[in-house]
Protein backbone atom coordinates (compact mmCIF):
# COMPACT_ATOMS: atom_id res chain seq x y z
CA UNK A 1 0.00 0.00 0.00
CA UNK A 2 3.04 2.34 -0.09
CA UNK A 3 3.78 3.00 -3.77
CA UNK A 4 1.20 0.65 -5.24
CA UNK A 5 1.28 2.10 -8.73
CA UNK A 6 0.06 -0.51 -11.18
CA UNK A 7 2.20 -0.94 -14.25
CA UNK A 8 0.73 -2.15 -17.51
CA UNK A 9 -1.17 -5.41 -17.66
CA UNK A 10 -1.13 -7.91 -14.80
CA UNK A 11 2.11 -6.98 -13.00
CA UNK A 12 1.67 -6.45 -9.27
CA UNK A 13 3.63 -4.16 -7.01
CA UNK A 14 6.01 -5.58 -4.44
CA UNK A 15 3.51 -5.15 -1.59
CA UNK A 16 0.76 -7.01 -3.43
CA UNK A 17 3.19 -9.78 -4.34
CA UNK A 18 4.08 -10.21 -0.66
CA UNK A 19 0.39 -10.46 0.19
CA UNK A 20 -0.06 -13.03 -2.58
CA UNK A 21 2.81 -15.10 -1.18
CA UNK A 22 1.20 -15.05 2.27
CA UNK A 23 -2.15 -15.95 0.74
CA UNK A 24 -0.64 -18.94 -1.08
CA UNK A 25 0.43 -20.42 2.25
CA UNK A 26 -3.10 -20.03 3.61
CA UNK A 27 -4.65 -21.45 0.44
CA UNK A 28 -2.41 -24.50 0.53
CA UNK A 29 -3.51 -25.18 4.11
CA UNK A 30 -7.24 -24.54 3.81
CA UNK A 31 -8.09 -25.15 0.16
CA UNK A 32 -11.80 -24.68 -0.59
CA UNK A 33 -12.56 -22.84 2.67
CA UNK A 34 -11.06 -19.63 1.24
CA UNK A 35 -11.74 -17.88 -2.03
CA UNK A 36 -9.25 -16.82 -4.67
CA UNK A 37 -6.95 -13.85 -4.14
CA UNK A 38 -8.19 -10.43 -5.26
CA UNK A 39 -5.01 -8.59 -6.23
CA UNK A 40 -6.32 -5.02 -6.58
CA UNK A 41 -3.53 -2.52 -5.87
CA UNK A 42 -5.20 -0.61 -3.05
CA UNK A 43 -6.32 -3.41 -0.75
CA UNK A 44 -5.53 -7.01 -1.71
CA UNK A 45 -7.88 -9.40 0.07
CA UNK A 46 -9.38 -12.87 0.12
CA UNK A 47 -12.71 -14.09 1.40
CA UNK A 48 -13.42 -16.86 3.86
CA UNK A 49 -16.14 -19.04 2.30
CA UNK A 50 -16.57 -21.60 5.06
CA UNK A 51 -17.56 -19.69 8.19
CA UNK A 52 -16.98 -22.62 10.52
CA UNK A 53 -13.28 -22.56 9.64
CA UNK A 54 -12.80 -18.83 10.33
CA UNK A 55 -11.36 -19.19 13.84
CA UNK A 56 -9.01 -21.95 12.64
CA UNK A 57 -7.81 -19.77 9.78
CA UNK A 58 -7.34 -16.88 12.21
CA UNK A 59 -5.21 -19.00 14.55
CA UNK A 60 -3.16 -20.26 11.62
CA UNK A 61 -2.59 -16.72 10.37
CA UNK A 62 -1.46 -15.55 13.78
CA UNK A 63 0.73 -18.47 14.81
CA UNK A 64 2.27 -19.95 11.64
CA UNK A 65 5.98 -19.08 11.54
CA UNK A 66 5.86 -18.02 7.90
CA UNK A 67 2.92 -15.64 8.39
CA UNK A 68 2.89 -14.23 11.95
CA UNK A 69 -0.01 -11.84 11.39
CA UNK A 70 -0.04 -10.67 14.98
CA UNK A 71 -1.50 -7.18 14.47
CA UNK A 72 -5.14 -6.72 13.53
CA UNK A 73 -5.28 -3.14 12.36
CA UNK A 74 -9.02 -2.86 11.82
CA UNK A 75 -12.26 -4.85 11.72
CA UNK A 76 -15.09 -3.03 9.94
CA UNK A 77 -18.67 -4.12 9.46
CA UNK A 78 -20.12 -3.63 5.98
CA UNK A 79 -23.67 -3.81 4.65
CA UNK A 80 -23.92 -5.49 1.24
CA UNK A 81 -27.47 -4.41 0.50
CA UNK A 82 -27.77 -5.81 -3.05
CA UNK A 83 -26.56 -9.26 -2.03
CA UNK A 84 -28.70 -9.21 1.14
CA UNK A 85 -25.64 -9.91 3.24
CA UNK A 86 -23.67 -8.35 6.05
CA UNK A 87 -19.98 -8.82 6.44
CA UNK A 88 -16.76 -7.84 8.14
CA UNK A 89 -13.50 -6.74 6.60
CA UNK A 90 -10.34 -7.30 8.67
CA UNK A 91 -6.95 -5.81 7.94
CA UNK A 92 -3.89 -7.65 9.21
CA UNK A 93 -0.23 -6.89 9.44
CA UNK A 94 2.88 -8.46 10.89
CA UNK A 95 4.89 -6.37 13.31
CA UNK A 96 8.62 -6.94 13.75
CA UNK A 97 8.76 -10.18 11.79
CA UNK A 98 7.71 -9.69 8.20
CA UNK A 99 6.36 -6.75 6.25
CA UNK A 100 3.41 -8.42 4.56
CA UNK A 101 -0.19 -7.35 5.10
CA UNK A 102 -3.50 -8.68 3.92
CA UNK A 103 -7.21 -8.19 4.27
CA UNK A 104 -9.91 -10.81 4.90
CA UNK A 105 -13.63 -10.64 4.23
CA UNK A 106 -16.24 -12.74 5.96
CA UNK A 107 -19.91 -12.51 5.00
CA UNK A 108 -23.11 -13.73 6.57
CA UNK A 109 -26.89 -13.48 6.06
CA UNK A 110 -28.57 -10.15 6.65
CA UNK A 111 -31.34 -11.39 8.93
CA UNK A 112 -30.06 -13.28 11.93
CA UNK A 113 -26.65 -13.83 10.40
CA UNK A 114 -23.81 -14.90 12.61
CA UNK A 115 -20.02 -14.94 12.27
CA UNK A 116 -17.66 -16.78 14.63
CA UNK A 117 -15.81 -14.38 16.88
CA UNK A 118 -12.03 -14.10 16.74
CA UNK A 119 -11.71 -12.16 19.98
CA UNK A 120 -9.88 -15.15 21.47
CA UNK A 121 -7.22 -14.86 18.76
CA UNK A 122 -6.70 -11.08 18.71
CA UNK A 123 -7.96 -9.30 21.83
CA UNK A 124 -8.55 -6.13 19.88
CA UNK A 125 -11.36 -7.83 17.96
CA UNK A 126 -13.48 -7.82 21.13
CA UNK A 127 -14.50 -4.17 20.92
CA UNK A 128 -14.46 -4.04 17.12
CA UNK A 129 -16.96 -6.89 16.95
CA UNK A 130 -19.14 -5.23 19.57
CA UNK A 131 -19.18 -2.10 17.44
CA UNK A 132 -20.03 -4.10 14.30
CA UNK A 133 -22.90 -5.74 16.20
CA UNK A 134 -24.08 -2.36 17.46
CA UNK A 135 -24.07 -0.79 14.02
CA UNK A 136 -25.18 -3.71 11.83
CA UNK A 137 -26.81 -6.36 13.95
CA UNK A 138 -24.88 -9.47 13.03
CA UNK A 139 -24.03 -11.64 16.01
CA UNK A 140 -20.62 -13.09 16.76
CA UNK A 141 -20.65 -16.63 18.13
CA UNK A 142 -18.33 -17.18 21.02
CA UNK A 143 -17.93 -13.50 21.83
CA UNK A 144 -17.51 -13.15 25.62
CA UNK A 145 -19.62 -10.02 26.00
CA UNK A 146 -21.75 -9.13 22.97
CA UNK A 147 -23.70 -5.97 23.73
CA UNK A 148 -24.00 -2.51 22.33
CA UNK A 149 -20.98 -0.31 22.82
CA UNK A 150 -21.64 3.08 21.24
CA UNK A 151 -25.42 3.43 21.18
CA UNK A 152 -27.37 3.10 24.43
CA UNK A 153 -28.36 -0.40 25.52
CA UNK A 154 -32.03 0.14 24.74
CA UNK A 155 -31.59 1.75 21.30
CA UNK A 156 -33.80 0.26 18.61
CA UNK A 157 -32.47 -0.52 15.19
CA UNK A 158 -29.01 -0.88 13.73
CA UNK A 159 -27.87 2.57 12.62
CA UNK A 160 -25.41 1.89 9.82
CA UNK A 161 -27.70 -0.37 7.81
CA UNK A 162 -28.75 1.24 4.58
CA UNK A 163 -32.45 0.98 5.43
CA UNK A 164 -32.20 2.40 8.94
CA UNK A 165 -34.95 4.79 10.07
CA UNK A 166 -34.26 7.06 13.02
CA UNK A 167 -36.63 6.54 15.95
CA UNK A 168 -38.90 9.45 16.85
CA UNK A 169 -38.21 9.69 20.57
CA UNK A 170 -35.78 8.20 23.03
CA UNK A 171 -36.85 8.26 26.67
CA UNK A 172 -39.25 11.08 25.89
CA UNK A 173 -36.67 13.28 24.13
CA UNK A 174 -37.30 14.12 20.49
CA UNK A 175 -34.59 12.68 18.26
CA UNK A 176 -34.90 14.27 14.79
CA UNK A 177 -34.13 17.97 14.24
Amino acid at each position, binding site marked *: *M*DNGMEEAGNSMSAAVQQSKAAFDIIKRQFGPAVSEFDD*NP*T*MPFFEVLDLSKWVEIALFMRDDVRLKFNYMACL*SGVDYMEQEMLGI*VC*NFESIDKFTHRIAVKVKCQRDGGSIPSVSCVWHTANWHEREAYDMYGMTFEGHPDLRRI*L*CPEDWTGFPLRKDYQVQETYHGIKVPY
Partner: protein
Amino acid sequence: MQELGKAELNATRIIRQDDNRVVIEKDLDTEYMVLSMGPQHPSTHGVLRLECITDGEVVVEAEPYLGYLHRCFEKYCEKVDYPGIVPYTDRMDYLAGMNTEFAYCIAVEKLLDIEIPRRVEFIRVIVAELNRIASHLVAIGTYGIDLGAFTPFLFCFRDREHILNLLEWISGARMLYNYMWIGGLSYDVPADFKKRVAEFITYFKPKVVELFQLLTENEIFVKRTKGIGIMPADVAINYAWSGPMLRGSGVKWDLRRNDPYSIYPELDFDVPVPDGKFSDVGDSLSRHLVRALEIDESLKIIEQCLDKMPEVEGFNSRAAIPKRIRPKAGEVYARAENPRGEVGFYIVSDGKSTKPLRCKARSSCFVNLSAMKDLSKGQLIPDLVAIIGSIDIVLGEVDR
Protein backbone atom coordinates in the same frame (compact mmCIF):
# COMPACT_ATOMS: atom_id res chain seq x y z
CA MET B 1 -10.19 -24.54 71.48
CA GLN B 2 -10.70 -26.17 68.16
CA GLU B 3 -11.16 -24.32 64.93
CA LEU B 4 -13.97 -25.93 62.99
CA GLY B 5 -14.02 -23.86 59.88
CA LYS B 6 -13.01 -20.66 58.23
CA ALA B 7 -14.59 -18.57 55.53
CA GLU B 8 -12.22 -16.28 53.68
CA LEU B 9 -14.63 -13.76 52.24
CA ASN B 10 -15.67 -12.04 55.41
CA ALA B 11 -13.03 -13.56 57.66
CA THR B 12 -15.37 -15.69 59.74
CA ARG B 13 -14.04 -18.32 62.05
CA ILE B 14 -16.14 -21.00 63.72
CA ILE B 15 -14.55 -22.10 66.98
CA ARG B 16 -15.56 -24.60 69.63
CA GLN B 17 -14.59 -23.14 72.99
CA ASP B 18 -13.18 -25.12 75.88
CA ASP B 19 -16.56 -25.32 77.55
CA ASN B 20 -18.05 -26.88 74.41
CA ARG B 21 -19.80 -23.73 73.21
CA VAL B 22 -19.58 -23.01 69.50
CA VAL B 23 -18.74 -19.43 68.80
CA ILE B 24 -18.68 -17.60 65.48
CA GLU B 25 -16.00 -14.92 65.35
CA LYS B 26 -16.04 -12.36 62.63
CA ASP B 27 -13.38 -9.94 61.62
CA LEU B 28 -14.10 -6.86 59.58
CA ASP B 29 -17.01 -7.46 57.23
CA THR B 30 -15.91 -6.52 53.73
CA GLU B 31 -17.60 -6.62 50.38
CA TYR B 32 -16.90 -5.33 46.91
CA MET B 33 -18.12 -1.87 45.94
CA VAL B 34 -19.14 -0.69 42.52
CA LEU B 35 -17.88 2.83 41.93
CA SER B 36 -18.87 4.70 38.81
CA MET B 37 -16.26 7.21 37.67
CA GLY B 38 -19.10 8.67 35.76
CA PRO B 39 -19.30 10.58 32.53
CA GLN B 40 -18.64 13.89 34.22
CA HIS B 41 -15.29 13.67 35.95
CA PRO B 42 -12.35 16.02 35.96
CA SER B 43 -9.79 13.31 35.24
CA THR B 44 -11.37 11.18 32.58
CA HIS B 45 -10.40 13.53 29.74
CA GLY B 46 -13.93 13.79 28.52
CA VAL B 47 -17.13 11.81 28.79
CA LEU B 48 -15.83 8.38 29.65
CA ARG B 49 -17.52 6.25 32.24
CA LEU B 50 -15.44 3.74 34.15
CA GLU B 51 -17.33 1.24 36.22
CA CYS B 52 -14.83 0.20 38.88
CA ILE B 53 -15.42 -2.79 41.10
CA THR B 54 -13.22 -2.13 44.08
CA ASP B 55 -12.16 -4.07 47.11
CA GLY B 56 -11.44 -1.14 49.39
CA GLU B 57 -8.96 1.02 47.55
CA VAL B 58 -7.80 -1.74 45.22
CA VAL B 59 -9.57 -1.99 41.90
CA VAL B 60 -10.62 -5.50 40.95
CA GLU B 61 -11.80 -4.48 37.51
CA ALA B 62 -12.50 -1.19 35.75
CA GLU B 63 -14.61 -1.47 32.64
CA PRO B 64 -14.97 1.47 30.32
CA TYR B 65 -18.44 2.39 29.04
CA LEU B 66 -18.35 4.42 25.86
CA GLY B 67 -20.77 6.06 23.56
CA TYR B 68 -21.40 9.29 25.43
CA LEU B 69 -19.96 11.23 22.51
CA HIS B 70 -21.06 9.02 19.63
CA ARG B 71 -21.68 11.54 16.89
CA CYS B 72 -22.53 9.28 13.98
CA PHE B 73 -19.42 10.02 11.92
CA GLU B 74 -19.77 6.91 9.79
CA LYS B 75 -23.39 7.64 8.95
CA TYR B 76 -22.39 11.12 7.82
CA CYS B 77 -19.74 9.64 5.55
CA GLU B 78 -22.46 7.84 3.60
CA LYS B 79 -24.61 10.95 3.24
CA VAL B 80 -22.02 13.64 2.49
CA ASP B 81 -19.68 13.70 -0.48
CA TYR B 82 -15.94 13.07 -0.23
CA PRO B 83 -14.71 16.67 0.25
CA GLY B 84 -17.49 17.39 2.73
CA ILE B 85 -16.26 14.69 5.09
CA VAL B 86 -13.02 16.56 5.88
CA PRO B 87 -14.58 18.86 8.55
CA TYR B 88 -16.04 15.79 10.25
CA THR B 89 -12.68 14.08 10.39
CA ASP B 90 -11.37 17.20 12.12
CA ARG B 91 -13.92 16.82 14.83
CA MET B 92 -13.05 13.21 15.49
CA ASP B 93 -9.70 13.82 17.16
CA TYR B 94 -10.13 17.49 17.80
CA LEU B 95 -6.69 17.97 19.31
CA ALA B 96 -4.92 16.68 16.19
CA GLY B 97 -7.24 17.76 13.41
CA MET B 98 -4.55 18.13 10.79
CA ASN B 99 -3.27 14.58 11.30
CA THR B 100 -6.72 13.03 10.95
CA GLU B 101 -7.37 15.07 7.81
CA PHE B 102 -4.01 13.84 6.53
CA ALA B 103 -5.00 10.20 7.02
CA TYR B 104 -8.33 10.73 5.27
CA CYS B 105 -6.81 12.62 2.35
CA ILE B 106 -4.14 10.03 1.65
CA ALA B 107 -6.80 7.30 1.74
CA VAL B 108 -8.98 9.01 -0.87
CA GLU B 109 -5.95 10.02 -2.93
CA LYS B 110 -4.92 6.35 -3.06
CA LEU B 111 -8.36 5.48 -4.40
CA LEU B 112 -8.21 8.30 -6.92
CA ASP B 113 -4.58 7.53 -7.78
CA ILE B 114 -3.55 11.17 -8.25
CA GLU B 115 -0.21 12.91 -7.86
CA ILE B 116 0.18 15.58 -5.20
CA PRO B 117 2.47 18.60 -5.83
CA ARG B 118 5.67 18.51 -3.82
CA ARG B 119 5.13 21.85 -2.14
CA VAL B 120 1.74 20.67 -0.90
CA GLU B 121 3.37 17.58 0.62
CA PHE B 122 5.89 19.67 2.51
CA ILE B 123 3.28 22.07 3.87
CA ARG B 124 1.12 19.12 4.91
CA VAL B 125 3.99 17.60 6.88
CA ILE B 126 4.83 20.92 8.54
CA VAL B 127 1.28 21.58 9.75
CA ALA B 128 0.83 17.94 10.77
CA GLU B 129 3.96 18.05 12.90
CA LEU B 130 2.99 21.42 14.40
CA ASN B 131 -0.32 19.91 15.33
CA ARG B 132 1.44 16.88 16.78
CA ILE B 133 3.44 19.15 19.07
CA ALA B 134 0.27 20.99 20.12
CA SER B 135 -1.48 17.70 20.83
CA HIS B 136 1.40 16.35 22.90
CA LEU B 137 1.47 19.60 24.87
CA VAL B 138 -2.17 19.13 25.80
CA ALA B 139 -1.51 15.48 26.67
CA ILE B 140 1.40 16.38 28.93
CA GLY B 141 -0.35 19.36 30.48
CA THR B 142 -3.55 17.49 31.31
CA TYR B 143 -1.58 14.50 32.57
CA GLY B 144 0.12 16.81 35.02
CA ILE B 145 -3.15 18.35 36.15
CA ASP B 146 -4.69 14.91 36.69
CA LEU B 147 -1.89 14.07 39.06
CA GLY B 148 -2.14 17.40 40.83
CA ALA B 149 0.52 19.48 39.07
CA PHE B 150 -1.19 22.69 37.99
CA THR B 151 1.81 24.67 36.68
CA PRO B 152 2.88 22.52 33.70
CA PHE B 153 -0.68 22.85 32.39
CA LEU B 154 -0.32 26.62 32.18
CA PHE B 155 3.13 26.38 30.61
CA CYS B 156 1.93 23.92 27.99
CA PHE B 157 -1.12 25.96 27.07
CA ARG B 158 0.93 29.14 26.80
CA ASP B 159 3.20 27.49 24.25
CA ARG B 160 0.29 25.85 22.52
CA GLU B 161 -1.24 29.28 21.92
CA HIS B 162 1.76 30.17 19.75
CA ILE B 163 1.18 27.10 17.59
CA LEU B 164 -2.52 27.85 17.39
CA ASN B 165 -1.74 31.40 16.27
CA LEU B 166 0.43 30.02 13.48
CA LEU B 167 -2.21 27.55 12.37
CA GLU B 168 -4.90 30.22 12.51
CA TRP B 169 -2.74 32.44 10.34
CA ILE B 170 -2.48 29.68 7.73
CA SER B 171 -5.92 28.14 7.76
CA GLY B 172 -8.27 30.58 9.44
CA ALA B 173 -9.24 28.52 12.46
CA ARG B 174 -7.62 27.76 15.79
CA MET B 175 -8.67 24.20 16.27
CA LEU B 176 -10.86 22.64 13.58
CA TYR B 177 -9.12 23.57 10.39
CA ASN B 178 -10.63 22.01 7.24
CA TYR B 179 -7.27 22.85 5.70
CA MET B 180 -6.10 19.70 3.94
CA TRP B 181 -8.36 19.02 1.01
CA ILE B 182 -8.33 15.89 -1.15
CA GLY B 183 -5.65 16.60 -3.70
CA GLY B 184 -4.21 19.75 -2.16
CA LEU B 185 -4.78 22.40 0.44
CA SER B 186 -7.44 25.03 0.80
CA TYR B 187 -4.90 27.89 0.86
CA ASP B 188 -1.21 28.27 0.28
CA VAL B 189 0.87 29.49 3.22
CA PRO B 190 1.40 33.25 3.61
CA ALA B 191 4.60 34.96 2.51
CA ASP B 192 6.39 35.19 5.86
CA PHE B 193 5.58 31.63 6.84
CA LYS B 194 9.10 30.22 6.92
CA LYS B 195 10.39 33.12 8.99
CA ARG B 196 7.65 32.88 11.59
CA VAL B 197 7.87 29.13 11.99
CA ALA B 198 11.66 29.39 12.39
CA GLU B 199 11.12 32.06 15.06
CA PHE B 200 8.69 29.78 16.85
CA ILE B 201 11.18 26.91 16.83
CA THR B 202 13.91 29.13 18.27
CA TYR B 203 11.51 30.30 20.99
CA PHE B 204 10.23 26.83 21.78
CA LYS B 205 13.39 24.74 22.08
CA PRO B 206 14.42 26.04 25.54
CA LYS B 207 10.81 25.70 26.67
CA VAL B 208 10.93 21.95 25.98
CA VAL B 209 13.93 21.66 28.28
CA GLU B 210 12.06 23.67 30.89
CA LEU B 211 9.03 21.39 30.61
CA PHE B 212 11.24 18.36 31.10
CA GLN B 213 12.74 19.79 34.26
CA LEU B 214 9.36 20.88 35.53
CA LEU B 215 7.34 17.73 35.05
CA THR B 216 9.17 14.73 33.65
CA GLU B 217 12.11 14.86 36.02
CA ASN B 218 9.97 15.80 39.01
CA GLU B 219 10.33 13.21 41.74
CA ILE B 220 6.66 13.19 42.71
CA PHE B 221 5.61 12.70 39.10
CA VAL B 222 8.09 9.85 38.64
CA LYS B 223 6.94 8.17 41.82
CA ARG B 224 3.32 8.36 40.70
CA THR B 225 3.87 6.97 37.23
CA LYS B 226 6.84 4.61 37.40
CA GLY B 227 5.83 0.97 37.37
CA ILE B 228 2.12 1.76 36.97
CA GLY B 229 0.11 0.04 34.30
CA ILE B 230 2.82 -2.11 32.77
CA MET B 231 1.88 -3.66 29.44
CA PRO B 232 4.22 -6.26 27.92
CA ALA B 233 5.05 -5.85 24.24
CA ASP B 234 3.38 -8.98 22.86
CA VAL B 235 0.13 -8.28 24.69
CA ALA B 236 0.24 -4.71 23.42
CA ILE B 237 0.55 -5.95 19.83
CA ASN B 238 -2.31 -8.38 20.37
CA TYR B 239 -4.44 -5.48 21.57
CA ALA B 240 -3.37 -3.60 18.41
CA TRP B 241 -1.87 -0.72 20.32
CA SER B 242 -0.02 1.77 18.17
CA GLY B 243 1.84 5.04 18.39
CA PRO B 244 3.33 6.17 21.70
CA MET B 245 1.53 3.37 23.53
CA LEU B 246 3.34 0.66 21.57
CA ARG B 247 6.64 2.52 21.62
CA GLY B 248 6.30 2.88 25.38
CA SER B 249 6.19 -0.92 25.61
CA GLY B 250 9.49 -1.15 23.80
CA VAL B 251 8.37 -1.94 20.23
CA LYS B 252 10.02 0.31 17.66
CA TRP B 253 7.01 0.80 15.39
CA ASP B 254 6.25 4.15 13.77
CA LEU B 255 4.09 4.36 10.67
CA ARG B 256 6.17 7.25 9.37
CA ARG B 257 9.03 4.75 9.14
CA ASN B 258 7.39 1.34 8.74
CA ASP B 259 4.63 2.26 6.28
CA PRO B 260 5.75 5.65 5.03
CA TYR B 261 3.44 8.09 3.34
CA SER B 262 3.93 11.55 1.86
CA ILE B 263 7.57 12.73 2.01
CA TYR B 264 8.55 11.12 5.30
CA PRO B 265 11.08 8.77 3.61
CA GLU B 266 13.21 11.82 2.77
CA LEU B 267 13.30 13.16 6.32
CA ASP B 268 15.75 12.21 9.02
CA PHE B 269 14.32 11.72 12.51
CA ASP B 270 14.58 9.25 15.38
CA VAL B 271 11.86 7.08 16.81
CA PRO B 272 12.27 7.32 20.59
CA VAL B 273 11.76 4.03 22.44
CA PRO B 274 12.46 4.01 26.19
CA ASP B 275 15.06 1.46 27.26
CA GLY B 276 14.17 1.05 30.91
CA LYS B 277 16.85 3.25 32.46
CA PHE B 278 14.63 6.13 33.55
CA SER B 279 11.33 4.27 33.58
CA ASP B 280 10.18 0.66 33.50
CA VAL B 281 9.53 -0.51 29.95
CA GLY B 282 5.77 -0.55 29.35
CA ASP B 283 4.69 1.61 32.28
CA SER B 284 2.92 4.97 32.28
CA LEU B 285 6.15 6.92 32.64
CA SER B 286 7.52 5.32 29.45
CA ARG B 287 4.48 6.34 27.48
CA HIS B 288 4.74 9.87 28.80
CA LEU B 289 8.45 9.91 28.00
CA VAL B 290 7.79 8.88 24.39
CA ARG B 291 5.45 11.83 23.95
CA ALA B 292 7.86 14.27 25.56
CA LEU B 293 10.78 13.08 23.40
CA GLU B 294 8.68 13.11 20.24
CA ILE B 295 8.27 16.86 20.52
CA ASP B 296 11.99 17.26 19.79
CA GLU B 297 11.75 14.93 16.81
CA SER B 298 8.84 16.91 15.40
CA LEU B 299 10.84 20.12 15.71
CA LYS B 300 13.65 18.42 13.76
CA ILE B 301 11.22 17.39 11.03
CA ILE B 302 9.80 20.90 10.72
CA GLU B 303 13.28 22.40 10.39
CA GLN B 304 14.19 20.00 7.60
CA CYS B 305 10.95 20.69 5.78
CA LEU B 306 11.48 24.43 5.97
CA ASP B 307 14.88 23.97 4.32
CA LYS B 308 13.72 21.59 1.64
CA MET B 309 10.38 23.14 0.77
CA PRO B 310 10.38 24.29 -2.88
CA GLU B 311 9.38 27.85 -3.67
CA VAL B 312 6.98 27.94 -6.60
CA GLU B 313 5.99 31.19 -8.35
CA GLY B 314 2.27 31.72 -8.39
CA PHE B 315 1.54 28.45 -6.64
CA ASN B 316 -2.06 27.30 -6.58
CA SER B 317 -2.62 24.78 -3.82
CA ARG B 318 -5.93 23.70 -5.37
CA ALA B 319 -4.45 22.93 -8.77
CA ALA B 320 -4.37 19.15 -8.40
CA ILE B 321 -7.84 18.85 -6.89
CA PRO B 322 -10.15 17.05 -9.31
CA LYS B 323 -13.26 18.94 -10.39
CA ARG B 324 -15.52 16.15 -9.19
CA ILE B 325 -14.25 13.53 -6.78
CA ARG B 326 -15.74 10.29 -7.98
CA PRO B 327 -13.25 7.44 -7.44
CA LYS B 328 -13.41 4.23 -9.42
CA ALA B 329 -14.99 1.22 -7.76
CA GLY B 330 -12.65 -0.21 -5.16
CA GLU B 331 -11.67 -0.10 -1.56
CA VAL B 332 -8.68 1.06 0.41
CA TYR B 333 -7.37 0.95 3.93
CA ALA B 334 -4.82 3.70 4.51
CA ARG B 335 -3.43 5.01 7.73
CA ALA B 336 -1.28 7.74 9.18
CA GLU B 337 0.65 8.19 12.39
CA ASN B 338 -1.43 10.38 14.65
CA PRO B 339 -0.15 11.68 17.97
CA ARG B 340 -2.23 8.96 19.61
CA GLY B 341 -1.46 6.09 17.31
CA GLU B 342 -2.63 4.71 14.04
CA VAL B 343 -5.63 6.37 12.50
CA GLY B 344 -6.85 4.49 9.49
CA PHE B 345 -9.69 4.90 7.05
CA TYR B 346 -11.32 1.97 5.30
CA ILE B 347 -13.20 3.46 2.35
CA VAL B 348 -15.36 1.56 -0.12
CA SER B 349 -16.33 3.28 -3.32
CA ASP B 350 -18.90 1.94 -5.77
CA GLY B 351 -17.54 3.92 -8.71
CA LYS B 352 -20.85 5.61 -9.49
CA SER B 353 -21.51 8.16 -6.77
CA THR B 354 -19.67 11.08 -5.21
CA LYS B 355 -20.36 9.72 -1.74
CA PRO B 356 -18.53 6.78 -0.20
CA LEU B 357 -20.40 3.52 0.13
CA ARG B 358 -18.73 2.87 3.45
CA CYS B 359 -16.12 4.83 5.34
CA LYS B 360 -14.89 3.33 8.57
CA ALA B 361 -12.57 5.32 10.78
CA ARG B 362 -10.16 3.12 12.67
CA SER B 363 -9.43 5.24 15.67
CA SER B 364 -6.33 4.87 17.78
CA CYS B 365 -7.91 5.78 21.12
CA PHE B 366 -10.77 3.27 20.75
CA VAL B 367 -8.29 0.46 20.34
CA ASN B 368 -5.89 1.74 23.00
CA LEU B 369 -8.71 2.01 25.52
CA SER B 370 -9.90 -1.55 24.95
CA ALA B 371 -7.02 -2.81 27.08
CA MET B 372 -8.24 -0.81 30.07
CA LYS B 373 -10.00 -3.77 31.65
CA ASP B 374 -6.80 -5.76 31.81
CA LEU B 375 -4.55 -2.85 32.70
CA SER B 376 -6.64 -1.85 35.68
CA LYS B 377 -6.66 -5.16 37.53
CA GLY B 378 -5.12 -4.79 40.94
CA GLN B 379 -4.35 -1.09 40.73
CA LEU B 380 -5.21 1.52 43.32
CA ILE B 381 -7.84 4.10 42.37
CA PRO B 382 -5.35 7.01 42.14
CA ASP B 383 -3.18 4.83 39.91
CA LEU B 384 -6.20 4.34 37.67
CA VAL B 385 -6.14 8.08 37.04
CA ALA B 386 -2.45 7.85 36.18
CA ILE B 387 -3.13 5.04 33.70
CA ILE B 388 -5.96 6.85 31.92
CA GLY B 389 -3.80 9.94 31.63
CA SER B 390 -1.00 7.93 30.09
CA ILE B 391 -3.30 6.36 27.48
CA ASP B 392 -4.10 9.93 26.36
CA ILE B 393 -7.65 9.44 25.12
CA VAL B 394 -9.72 11.89 23.19
CA LEU B 395 -13.35 10.86 23.44
CA GLY B 396 -14.26 12.34 20.08
CA GLU B 397 -12.08 9.68 18.50
CA VAL B 398 -13.12 6.85 20.81
CA ASP B 399 -16.80 7.32 20.10
CA ARG B 400 -16.60 8.95 16.68
